[in-house]
């Protein structure tokens, strides 16, 4: 093997040596420069019709090994064209043409298929008329030239052009194009036959400047430095191109009146492979990531962005159809994949698209970095991150009347957002959104598959669908929130004076359109949800609301309306504690409450709303000013609705039950253990003066075990039980029991004419059964004092006197009394009281009340009224049978004033009295108005006053053994103003009969006459008693009444006296005097 190799290399070396020797002979001995140069110059002149200058031409072998070449050390072509930068078309330091030595030797054809240009400039110029300075080749054919020359100079079939450090300037005025390739070193290799063209361009790094004017005022300029290798072939109509560009640095500028942009590329490497056949093109572009700058106007959209691009696509030029098999574009670390087809139908003037795209994991921060500076104000203070994913399709036709259908999905994962005007950072922002749109409704929509975010202590999550994107946007969202209010407190302006703490969490489903929101069309908005409020504490100015734990369930509209009209809204509130407070105004709190509410649209003020509210509360406390209410377990229902047959007026129905109510209203307090209400009220707005008339309440009320305390009462009013039914006209008290201190009352009966009374059409009528074990009359008077009087009227009548009792007026109330025991001011006691008590429009009448006093059984008719200030009327008509006179005086001390001699008698008697008087508001008696009459009957009385009796007895010469016993007494007396007239009456003692009569005055001045009408003495003695109780004078006087009780001998005056007595007696007893 070694031997073979040795022989082979020796043979090869020998052949090469012989070849080199032959080449040397040819170049140095046969084709010397002196021979070649004229030939070439001559031939050039044949082909070129411009001034040319060719340096010395020599044949080369070693530099063009293994072929021979012709090399000129200078080539200058000068072809002046007006407008060209210079006259020189070509100025080369060296030009070498590689020739086919075989054609040259055999056929004497100078076939050049390889040019090598080195150093120099080429300036190609086409003026605006299309005259080119490189149009220098003449019309003579080589064949014609062949006959005249030794060599035929054929330069076709150029296989290779090698440029070395050549600058090429190309200016085409017709296209406003200027291209300047500087220091271009390239190898252009190719072959062209009749049907096929094959070529390769391999350019070393060079600079290229282009200027292209697309109009009178626009220009495209570019400056490129790169190296490139382009190979291509055209065979059988198929063009194949492979190009590789390396280290391309370039800038591009476009400027027009309306648009200016600049683009820069640094260190770009790209590979382009493509083929074309007919109008079909398929290709692949692969651009390695390189730095790109893009500036539109003064706005830099990309700066040092790393952009990469890969495209695999087919195109049909006739259809302007492109199929993107694979497109991958990356900007920095943002990568976009696109595939699909797009076709421009110039006939129907539409673009048909069927594209899909996808990008993955785009960092939001990188996207934010692409925001141009002029838009940075929108993102100022915004720090966002996260990864964005998206994929989608664009399908359909784009034309003036239609848009393709865009169906895309966008996902954001692990997003964060921090915004200077937003008080808390958002983290864990995740979104999954589908957008489906052809920019038309109703088929366009956005589907929010999920959208959730968190703050340090809050979170929100929503899903939903948005339709009608291009008209009235319609949203259907389902949202879960968990919000710590204090996190968002900084968002509330200080001027609003709102502080909020606590947590709100829950779910809400809403369906609405934007127009509904703008127009506040709540009747069209659908929303429902449940929220839990934990530790909520909201303060607005002086108003605050707090809750420990509350749940609010609501729905708009109301899906489970109890009535057909309450379908607008529903709310169900459950709370363990809820309180509201306004500084210096009110406070209210609920514990363990359930409140359910539903209503019609309350915003429509032209209609009465339908409202249903039910509540069940463990404890309710409320306080306002001096009012304080605490209620245990209130529950019930409130219903408000338009009245039947009167839709403009409301009807309210309330059913209410509660346990203990502890209420304080200023000086009043009430404690009720159990309260039941069932009230229906219908409003009549025509009744404007009184709320009761306006509302016409009817229903039922029951109170069990209550206590009411009033400042005006010394003792609280205890209410064992009250049950009543009422309507606008009547109040039917089925059972009404009350206790005040030792007093107890049971009232039952009916109150009528209630609304008529309020209207002022009639008196308030009532008839009740009043039963009592013990009654303190003074307390009863305190309770009823002043009812029916205005403050002005009370002042007018009572003046400054607070003790004046004002009988209720405007009413006619009758009580059928049955009182076991009664007291008045602690001094007067009575028992077994039966009779009628009537209050008639300011007048109190005790009508034939019978009762038992300690001294006797009594019948009483009394009247009291207060017609005006300082003019109060009192009237009394009473009868006491079998009363101890001493007890009578003790019970009614005034009788002693009216008939002082009664104090001298002991024993039982009958006492009848009728009297009346007026007083001022302080109950000072107006003496001029006193009217009274009385009748006293007694048997077997005893004279108690021994001294007085003794003095009278001595004066009348009674026997010493006369007993101080009076068999009978029958007397009448009257009071008129200050005059007390004792009508002559007969007293019988033992064997004496005396008539006593006279007058005394209320100042206790006496003028009495005691006349003996029967005695053992033969004469009629009489004694006059005058003076005062302290200074009483007893003297014998004329017998005034000697014939009294002696009908046969009575004189006219005496008869009249007796007649008057009978008149008085009859009036007192009610007997007929006729």
């Amino acid at each position, binding site marked *: 093997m070694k031997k073979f190799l040795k022989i082979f290399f020796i043979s090869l070396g020998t052949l090469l040596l012989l070849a080199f020797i032959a080449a040397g002979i040819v170049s140095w001995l046969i084709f010397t420069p002196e021979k070649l140069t004229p030939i070439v110059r001559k031939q050039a002149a044949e082909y070129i019709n411009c001034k040319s200058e060719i340096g010395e031409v020599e044949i080369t072998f070693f530099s063009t090994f293994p072929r021979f070449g012709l090399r000129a050390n200078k080539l200058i072509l000068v072809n002046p064209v007006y407008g060209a930068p210079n006259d020189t078309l070509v100025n080369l330091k060296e030009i070498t043409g590689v020739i086919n030595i075989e054609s040259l030797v055999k056929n004497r054809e100078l076939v050049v298929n390889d040019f090598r240009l080195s150093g120099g400039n080429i300036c190609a110029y086409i003026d605006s008329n299309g005259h080119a300075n490189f149009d220098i080749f003449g019309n003579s054919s080589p064949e014609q030239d062949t006959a005249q020359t030794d060599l035929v100079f054929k330069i076709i079939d150029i296989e290779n052009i090698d440029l070395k450090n050549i600058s090429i300037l190309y200016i085409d005025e017709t296209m406003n194009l200027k291209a300047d390739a500087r220091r271009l070193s390239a190898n252009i290799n190719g072959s062209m036959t009749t049907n096929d063209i094959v070529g390769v361009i391999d350019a070393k790094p060079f600079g290229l400047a282009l200027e292209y004017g697309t109009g009178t005022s626009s220009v495209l300029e570019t400056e490129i430095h790169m190296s490139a290798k382009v190979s291509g072939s055209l065979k059988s109509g198929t063009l194949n191109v492979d190009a590789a560009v390396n280290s391309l640095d370039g800038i591009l500028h476009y400027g027009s009146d309306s648009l200016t942009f600049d683009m820069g590329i640094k260190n770009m490497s790209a590979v382009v492979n493509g083929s074309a056949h007919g109008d079909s093109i398929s290709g692949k572009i692969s651009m390695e990531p390189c730095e790109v700058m893009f500036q539109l106007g003064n706005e830099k959209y990309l700066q040092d962005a790393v952009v990469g691009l890969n495209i695999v696509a087919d195109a049909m030029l006739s259809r302007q159809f492109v199929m993107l098999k694979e497109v991958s574009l990356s900007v920095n670390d943002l990568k976009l994949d696109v595939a699909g087809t797009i076709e421009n139908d110039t006939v129907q003037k539409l673009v048909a698209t069927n594209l899909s795209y996808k990008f993955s994991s785009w960092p939001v921060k990188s996207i934010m970095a692409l925001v141009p500076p002029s838009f940075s104000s929108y993102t100022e203070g915004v720090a966002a991150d996260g990864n964005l994913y998206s994929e989608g399709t664009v399908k359909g036709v784009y034309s003036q009347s239609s848009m393709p259908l865009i169906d895309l999905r966008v996902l954001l994962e692990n997003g964060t957002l921090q915004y200077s005007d937003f008080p808390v950072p958002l983290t864990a922002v995740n979104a999954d959104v589908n957008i489906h749109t052809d920019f038309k409704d109703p088929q366009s929509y956005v589907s929010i598959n999920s959208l959730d975010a968190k703050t340090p202590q809050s979170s929100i999550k929503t899903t939903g669908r948005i339709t009608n994107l291009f008209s009235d946007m319609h949203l259907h969202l389902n949202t879960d929130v968990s919000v710590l209010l204090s996190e968002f407190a900084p968002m509330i302006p200080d001027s609003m004076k709102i502080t909020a703490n606590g947590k709100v969490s829950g779910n809400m489903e809403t369906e609405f359109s934007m127009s509904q929101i703008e127009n506040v069309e709540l009747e069209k908005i659908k929303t429902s949800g449940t929220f839990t409020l934990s530790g909520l504490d909201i303060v607005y100015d002086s108003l605050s609301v707090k809750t420990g734990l509350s749940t609010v369930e609501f729905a708009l509209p109301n899906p489970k309306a109890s009535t057909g009209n309450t379908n607008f809204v529903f709310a169900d509130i459950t709370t363990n504690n809820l309180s509201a407070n306004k500084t210096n105004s009110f406070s209210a709190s609920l514990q363990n409450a359930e409140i359910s509410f539903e209503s019609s649209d309350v915003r429509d003020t032209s209609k009465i709303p339908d409202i249903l509210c039910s509540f069940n509360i463990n404890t309710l406390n409320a306080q306002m000013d001096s009012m304080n209410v605490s209620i245990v377990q209130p529950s019930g229902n409130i219903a408000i609705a338009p009245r039947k047959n009167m839709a403009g007026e409301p009807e309210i129905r309330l059913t209410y039950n509660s346990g203990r109510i502890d209420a304080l209203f200023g000086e009043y307090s009430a404690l009720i253990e159990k309260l039941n209400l069932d009230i229906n009220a219908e409003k009549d707005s025509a009744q404007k003066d009184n709320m009761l008339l306006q509302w016409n309440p009817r229903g039922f009320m029951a109170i069990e075990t209550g206590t009411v305390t009033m400042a005006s009462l010394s003792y609280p009013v205890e209410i064992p039980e009250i049950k009543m039914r009422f309507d606008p006209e009547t109040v039917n008290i089925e059972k009404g029991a009350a206790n005040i201190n030792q007093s107890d009352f049971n009232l039952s009966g009916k109150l009528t004419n209630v609304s008529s009374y309020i209207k002022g059409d009639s008196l308030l009528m009532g008839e009740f059964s009043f039963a009592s074990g013990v009654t303190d009359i003074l307390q009863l008077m305190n309770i009823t004092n002043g009812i029916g009087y205005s403050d002005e009227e009370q002042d007018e009548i009572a003046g400054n006197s607070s003790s004046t009792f004002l009988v209720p007026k405007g009413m006619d109330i009758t009580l059928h009394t049955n009182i076991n025991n009664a007291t008045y001011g602690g001094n007067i006691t009575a028992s077994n009281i039966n009779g009628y008590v009537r209050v008639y429009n300011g007048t109190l009448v005790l009508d034939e009340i019978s009762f038992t006093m300690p001294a006797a059984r009594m019948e009483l008719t009394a009247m009291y009224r207060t017609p005006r200030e300082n*003019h109060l009327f009192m009237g009394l*008509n009473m009868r006491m049978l079998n009363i101890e006179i001493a007890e009578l005086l003790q019970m009614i001390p005034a009788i002693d004033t009216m008939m002082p001699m009664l104090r001298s008698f002991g024993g039982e008697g009958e006492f009848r009295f*009728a*009297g*009346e008087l007026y007083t001022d508001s302080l109950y000072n008696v*107006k003496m001029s*108005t006193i009217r009274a009459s009385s009748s006293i009957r007694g048997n077997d009385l005893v004279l108690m006053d021994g001294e007085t009796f003794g003095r009278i007895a001595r004066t009348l010469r009674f026997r010493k053994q006369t007993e101080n016993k009076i068999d009978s007494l029958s007397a009448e007396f009257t009071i008129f103003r200050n005059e007390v007239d004792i009508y002559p009456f007969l007293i019988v003692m033992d064997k004496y009969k005396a008539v006593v009569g006279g007058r005394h005055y209320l100042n206790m001045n006496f003028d009495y006459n005691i006349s003996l009408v029967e005695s053992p003495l033969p004469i009629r003695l009489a004694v006059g008693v005058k003076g005062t109780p302290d200074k009483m004078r007893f003297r014998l006087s004329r017998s005034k009444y000697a014939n009294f009780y002696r009908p046969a001998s009575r004189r006219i005056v005496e008869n*009249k006296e007796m007649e008057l007595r009978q008149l008085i007696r009859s*009036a007192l007893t009610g007997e007929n005097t006729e």
Partner: protein
Amino acid sequence: MKKILFIAIVFLLSSVLFNSCEKEYEFDETLLYGKWKQGTLYYKYLSDHTGATWDTSEDVTEEEAQKFTWTLVNSELRQIHIMEIGGEIPKNYNITELTATSLKYNDSFSSYSFSKVN
């Protein structure tokens, strides 16, 4: 004997001293019609034999006057004051003077003098 004599003298004196002559006067009752006053005390006599009395010093007006009925027989003026509560209070007076401007009467204990109010 002294005792009998004393009684006889008393009896005799009594029959002399206490025997008086009664003279009846007649007055025209129409003169009584109208309003009469004694200080602040007023009386009003109407032709239908009703009347009323009031005392302005005690803040009682004519409209609030208390009612009575009256009769005048010869010189005897009887007022029967009527109580609202039921009951009557008779007052008998003996007129001693009744003119168009003056009215005087008395009873066993007091005298009263009134002047006519126009």
